[in-house]
C-alpha cells in the first residue's frame, strides 16, 4: 500500500488547485479522478470553455504533470475499508492508498426532476447535452430546447448556438422577479455579471422565458416534441434534443461515507476547509454550488493548509464566493409547481423503473428502497435521490460502501493482502 501526505479525490478545478498547491509546498500528493482526463465537468481536459480559453487550466495541468504528483485518473474510490485508507478501482484491478490528510473535491451533478417522457432518448441534462456535444455528438442544424434552472442554461445555449444548433427556446423555471433580484445581487460580483451578459448576447436570437418549464416530452422511443408551460400558456415545440436540468446538487456520497457533517445539503467546513472528520477537508461544489472561482479558491486554501501553510489571506475572498453560492441556490430553487409534473405512471427511479404511483404510499427513503427498489439500481439513488427529496421531502440516508458499483474481488479483499501494483 502506498502512503501519501495528501490525497485529493476529484481532479476538477478545486482538486487540481489543491493538489498543485500542496505539492508546490513539498507535500507528497496523490490526485484521483474517475474520469480519464483532469479538468472536471467544466474543463473536461481542455482549456476551451464556452466563450474563451482558460489559461488557469493550462497552468494547473502543467503544475500537476511535473512528475511530483501521483496522478490516478480513470480510478474510482469505492470504499474506505479501514481508517485513513481509500480503496480505488480501475479497469485493471484495485489498489489501497493511505492518506495523512484527505481533500474531497467530488464536485456536483445536475438535479433532475421527473416529468412525463423524461426517459425518452434525446432527453438529457443541460450539462448532459453540453458534455455529449463536447464528446462528439453532432449538433449542427439540430433543433434544441433547453429548460430547467440555473446559469448553466445560458452558458450551454451560447455554446450550442455557436456550434450551429437551432436553440428553439430557453425555459427557466425561476420567476422574473427572482431573477431580477439575483441580477441586482450580481452587481457585487461583476465577473459573473459579465459572463451572464456575454452568454445572453451569444444567444440573442433564442427566446429566454422565465417562469416557464417543460411539462412533457413526446415521442415513441426517441424525443419528437416537448410541451412547455410558458407563464400559464401551453405550447408544443417539435425538437431533436431537450436538455433539462434544475441547477446542481453536490456529490456527497464520499463525504457522507467518511461521516463528514452535512448541513442544509452541503458539507460543513471550517475556515481552513476542514470537515467535522479530522484530517478530512472538502472543497468546491460540495460546500456550496458556487462555480469555478470558489472551487479554485477553496482548493488553494486546503492545499496550503494541508502542506502546513497559512491560508488566512484567502478567507475573505472565499467567503464572498460562498455568499454568491447562497444567492444562486435561492434564485434557482425549484418552484413547487414542478412537483405536479410527474404523473402516477412517470418513472421517478430510472434504474429500477419505479413509478411515482409506487412511491406515493411510502413514508421514507428507506421504506421506498426496501419496498420498491427505488434508488437501489446502478446509480444508487444519485438521480432519483434528489428527485425524491423534492417530491416527497425524504432525506437519503448515509450511503454504505461501495459508493460506486464495484467488482466483488475489489470489495472482498482484505486491506493487508491487497496488491500494491495495479
Amino acid at each position: 500500500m502506498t502512503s501519501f501526505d495528501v490525497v485529493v479525490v476529484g481532479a476538477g478545478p478545486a482538486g487540481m488547485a489543491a493538489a498543485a498547491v500542496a505539492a508546490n509546498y513539498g507535500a507528497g500528493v496523490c490526485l484521483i479522478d474517475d474520469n480519464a482526463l483532469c479538468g472536471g465537468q467544466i474543463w473536461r481536459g481542455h482549456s476551451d470553455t464556452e466563450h474563451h480559453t482558460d489559461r488557469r487550466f493550462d497552468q494547473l495541468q502543467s503544475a500537476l504533470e511535473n512528475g511530483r504528483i501521483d496522478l490516478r485518473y480513470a480510478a474510482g474510490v469505492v470504499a474506505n475499508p479501514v481508517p485513513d485508507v481509500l480503496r480505488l478501482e480501475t479497469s485493471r484491478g484495485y489498489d489501497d492508498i493511505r492518506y495523512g490528510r484527505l481533500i474531497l473535491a467530488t464536485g456536483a451533478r445536475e438535479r433532475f426532476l421527473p416529468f412525463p417522457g423524461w426517459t425518452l432518448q434525446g432527453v438529457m441534462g443541460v450539462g448532459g447535452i453540453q458534455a455529449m456535444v463536447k464528446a462528439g455528438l453532432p449538433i449542427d442544424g439540430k433543433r434544441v430546447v433547453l429548460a430547467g434552472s440555473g446559469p448553466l442554461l445560458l452558458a450551454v445555449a451560447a455554446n450550442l448556438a455557436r456550434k450551429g444548433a437551432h436553440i428553439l427556446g430557453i425555459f427557466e423555471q425561476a420567476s422574473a422577479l427572482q431573477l431580477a433580484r439575483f441580477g441586482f445581487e450580481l452587481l457585487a460580483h461583476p465577473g459573473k455579471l459579465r459572463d451572464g451578459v456575454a452568454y445572453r448576447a451569444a444567444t440573442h436570437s433564442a427566446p429566454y422565458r422565465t417562469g416557464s418549464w417543460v411539462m412533457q416530452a413526446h415521442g415513441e422511443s426517441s424525443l419528437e416534441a416537448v410541451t412547455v408551460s410558458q407563464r400559464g400558456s401551453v405550447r408544443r415545440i417539435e425538437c431533436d434534443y431537450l436538455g433539462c436540468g434544475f441547477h446542481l446538487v453536490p456529490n456527497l456520497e464520499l463525504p457522507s461515507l467518511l461521516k463528514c457533517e452535512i448541513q442544509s445539503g452541503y458539507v460543513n467546513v471550517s475556515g481552513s476547509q476542514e470537515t467535522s472528520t479530522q484530517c478530512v477537508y472538502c472543497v468546491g461544489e460540495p460546500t456550496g454550488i458556487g462555480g469555478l472561482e470558489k472551487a479554485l479558491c477553496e482548493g488553494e486554501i486546503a492545499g496550503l493548509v494541508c502542506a502546513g501553510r497559512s491560508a488566512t489571506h484567502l478567507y475573505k475572498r472565499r467567503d464572498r464566493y460562498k455568499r454568491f453560492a447562497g444567492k444562486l441556490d435561492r434564485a434557482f430553487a425549484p418552484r413547487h409547481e414542478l412537483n405536479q409534473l410527474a404523473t402516477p405512471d412517470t418513472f421517478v427511479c430510472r434504474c429500477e423503473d419505479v413509478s411515482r404511483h409506487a412511491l406515493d404510499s411510502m413514508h421514507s427513503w428507506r421504506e421506498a428502497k426496501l419496498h420498491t427498489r427505488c434508488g437501489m439500481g446502478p446509480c444508487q439513488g444519485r438521480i432519483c435521490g434528489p428527485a425524491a427529496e423534492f417530491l416527497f421531502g425524504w432525506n437519503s440516508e448515509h450511503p454504505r460502501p461501495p459508493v460506486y458499483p464495484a467488482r466483488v474481488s475489489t470489495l472482498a479483499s482484505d486491506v493487508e493482502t491487497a496488491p500494491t501494483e495495479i
Partner: protein
Amino acid sequence: MKRSTSTQPAKPAVDLTINGRSVSIAQDTSVAAALMQAAIATRKSVTGTPRNALCAMGVCMECCATVNGIKHVRTCQLIVQQGMDVVTG
C-alpha cells in the same frame, strides 16, 4: 454520421462495431455520443424501454453497454477506438 459541423474541421474516423454492424465515427467521440448519433439505445430498462445517456458525466448509468466483452461500461466516459466492439442491451 461523419458529418462535420460548421465550426469544427472534420476529424479522421475510426471504425468500430456496434451490435455486429460496422460503423465509422469521428475520433475523440465518446461511445455514448456515437450510439446517440447512430440512434441506437444504449440499454433497455428493466421494463423494456429503450434508454440513452442522460447525464453524460458518469453518474446516471443510463449509457452502460458491453464494450469488448466487458459488461456495464459507462460509454459516456469512454472514447471510441479502432476495432472496438460495442453491444447494447
